[in-house]
């Protein structure tokens, strides 16, 4: 702010000096010119009176001739003074207005204000280095979960959208290039409350630049970056980027998970969803031969993943040479002939995965006419086409940007959640379905809160004191309701990590030791209650023993007297 003030003053040097000089000359002249008072005697204005007259004249307020009507000589001098002072005055005013409208100055002011607002954040926040479709969704989910978000985006129109958006907390934003380290510092990478940096632009080089600068300046800060090319991803990894997201493999991966293990997929969606949302009704894709339209980077990943699930695929591709497709039916898939040639009548489903939304819709519509029993999976590229896809109502509509946002969320909420979801992938569908029904019993059908608890002196004071005294604390104890120990809080422990070893869905009888990290999933109330009960000695004592120990020494003494 300081530098801006002095920048303005320095640019105003010339108009200010002009004003001082012109006012000085006009004022001094007015005191030297003789006037006539009401008794017909000669009088001279004092300096103060003259300054007063010149001030209201120069600013064109013009109170008239005070205190006495002016003599000819005074009027002559006033005429001269008007031209002498009014012009510099307007020159200065014009200069100030020009300065305030100066683009570079406004940019500097905006950046300084942004930096100040970020510096005053007193709660954990994430930095998003773009505000594209995925980042947009991510920002809203985080906001819904009451986490603060700071956005750096280069395109002003995207930020305009952000300003108009209805959010719980103010999302601080800056229109600037995230590649410039200065802007990252403004966005708060040195702020102790910064929880991580997410860079999801569609330009790999930008993502790389951001990831590398953040890791160089703040090696301990979590960085989530999007990378399409393998060499870029490797480069990011070498700088220690925590999570690298490849939208293409992620899409194929998720699609395969959806076809193969629906329960696992739903669990994934559910734990990374917006709290309060209900789950979409699950569709179970059939097994058999699948038609895959488009063998680009998405298509390749889809085919690879489907084949891993032992499903056969037939590829339809318009330009087999460009995409290095060895065995395929040539055509775009929008015409009936190509689809028939590919065996649409015997196929069990079709995946329209080109990067053109209208083509994709056209493909599935044609295919549906030819074979009404087909299971239809369609890729939606642009969020703005949502109305078209809703109207069509394919069995599964998959949107890469949504998938990226959910994946990021899994890593951002708590690192334990990402680990949990990875472990879940190794479990079978039956296991996942069991877990889902267990979760639904406890927290209901809406998306629950997911949070981690660490058992140490800082985060669970009462529990760690109990353990230090050599008493046994079971996992089930933590879940007891502090207002009635017979009841249980509405939460399910999903994962317990102890010395790098993970226990999936730990049993209630598990004995807690210090240093345990527990991932829980539960209602908002449970999320708010748990820290209170495990940090408060009185509350936790009640949970463990059913007795309430008074807080004050006097009451404790009285109680001891009564009991003895």
């Amino acid at each position, binding site marked *: 702010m300081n530098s801006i003030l*002095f*920048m303005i*003053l*320095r640019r*105003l*040097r010339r108009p*200010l*000096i002009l004003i*001082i*000089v012109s006012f*000085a000359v006009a*004022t*001094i002249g007015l005191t030297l010119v003789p006037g006539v008072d009401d008794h017909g005697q000669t009088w001279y204005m*004092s*300096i*103060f009176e003259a300054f007063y007259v010149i001030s209201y004249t120069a600013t064109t307020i013009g109170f008239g001739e005070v205190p006495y009507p002016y003599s000819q000589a005074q009027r002559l001098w006033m005429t001269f003074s008007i031209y002498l002072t009014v012009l510099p005055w307007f020159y200065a005013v014009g200069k100030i207005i020009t300065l305030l409208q100066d683009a570079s100055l406004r940019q500097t002011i905006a950046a300084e204000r942004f930096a100040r607002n970020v510096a005053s954040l007193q709660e954990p926040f994430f930095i998003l280095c773009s505000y594209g479709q995925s980042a947009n969704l991510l920002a809203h989910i985080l906001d819904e979960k009451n986490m603060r978000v700071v956005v750096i985006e280069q395109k002003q129109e995207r930020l305009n959208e952000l300003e108009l958006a209805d959010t719980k907390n103010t999302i601080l934003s800056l229109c600037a290039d995230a590649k410039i380290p200065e802007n990252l510092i403004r966005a708060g990478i040195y702020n102790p409350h910064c929880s991580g940096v997410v860079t999801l632009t569609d330009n790999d080089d930008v993502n790389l630049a951001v990831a590398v600068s953040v890791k160089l300046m703040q090696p301990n800060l979590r960085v989530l970056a999007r990378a399409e090319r393998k060499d870029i991803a490797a480069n990011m990894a070498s700088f220690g980027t925590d999570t690298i997201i490849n939208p293409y493999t992620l899409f194929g991966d998720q699609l395969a998970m959806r076809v193969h293990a629906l329960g696992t997929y739903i669990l994934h969606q559910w734990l990374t969803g917006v709290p309060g949302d209900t789950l979409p009704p699950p569709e179970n894709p059939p097994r058999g031969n699948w038609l895959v339209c488009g063998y680009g980077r998405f298509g390749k990943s889809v085919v690879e993943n489907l084949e891993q699930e032992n499903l056969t695929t037939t590829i339809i591709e318009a330009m087999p040479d460009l995409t290095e497709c060895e065995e395929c039916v040539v055509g775009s898939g929008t015409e009936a002939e190509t689809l028939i040639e590919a065996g649409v009548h015997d196929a069990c489903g079709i995946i329209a995965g080109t990067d053109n939304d209208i083509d994709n819709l056209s493909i599935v519509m044609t295919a549906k006419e030819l074979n009404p029993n087909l299971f239809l999976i369609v890729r939606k590229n642009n969020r703005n086409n949502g109305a078209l896809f809703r109207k069509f109502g394919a069995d599964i509509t998959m949107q890469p940007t949504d998938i990226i946002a959910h994946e990021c969320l899994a890593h951002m909420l708590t690192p334990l959640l990402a680990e949990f979801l990875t472990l879940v992938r190794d479990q079978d569908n039956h296991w996942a379905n069991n877990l889902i029904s267990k979760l639904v019993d406890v927290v209901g059908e809406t998306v629950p809160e997911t949070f981690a608890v660490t058992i140490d002196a800082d985060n669970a004071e009462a529990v760690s004191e109990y353990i230090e005294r050599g008493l046994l604390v079971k996992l089930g104890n933590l879940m007891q309701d502090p207002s009635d120990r017979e009841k249980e809080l509405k939460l399910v422990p999903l994962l317990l990590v102890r010395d790098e070893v993970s226990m999936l869905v730990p049993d209630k009888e598990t004995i807690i030791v210090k240093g345990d990290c527990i991932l829980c999933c539960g209602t908002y109330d449970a999320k708010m209650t748990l820290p209170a009960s495990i940090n408060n000695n009185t509350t936790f004592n009640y949970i463990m023993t059913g007795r309430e120990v008074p807080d004050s020494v006097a009451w404790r003494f009285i109680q001891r007297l009564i009991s003895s």
Partner: protein
Amino acid sequence: MNMEKVVFGFFIVLAMTLNFGFFLGDIDNASHHHVYELYAAITVSLIATVLKFGDRTQVGAILLSTSLAADLQLITAAILWAALQGNMETAHLMVYIVSLSGGALMANFVSVVLLISETISQRR
């Protein structure tokens, strides 16, 4: 020779000399202190202040602050003069005004000392 430096030095020194000229004389004798001299001192001091804007060096910052101190006291003296003239004994009023200008003189003196010391430290 740099014209900007000449103008800069001229105004800073002039601000001090005018101030000194006004200050000189019996403290309670109105005929020793002319109102135009105070007027000129204020004008030149204001110009000197504006000339000092925007210098980001440490010396520049101190120069600006001494100028602001001088302005503050001189303008206070002028306001007192305009507001209290005729309301109190002239000799009393003069004591206030001249002592304020004496304060401003100190600030202007520091300013000139800084200017000279900076000039000397540059070996060109």
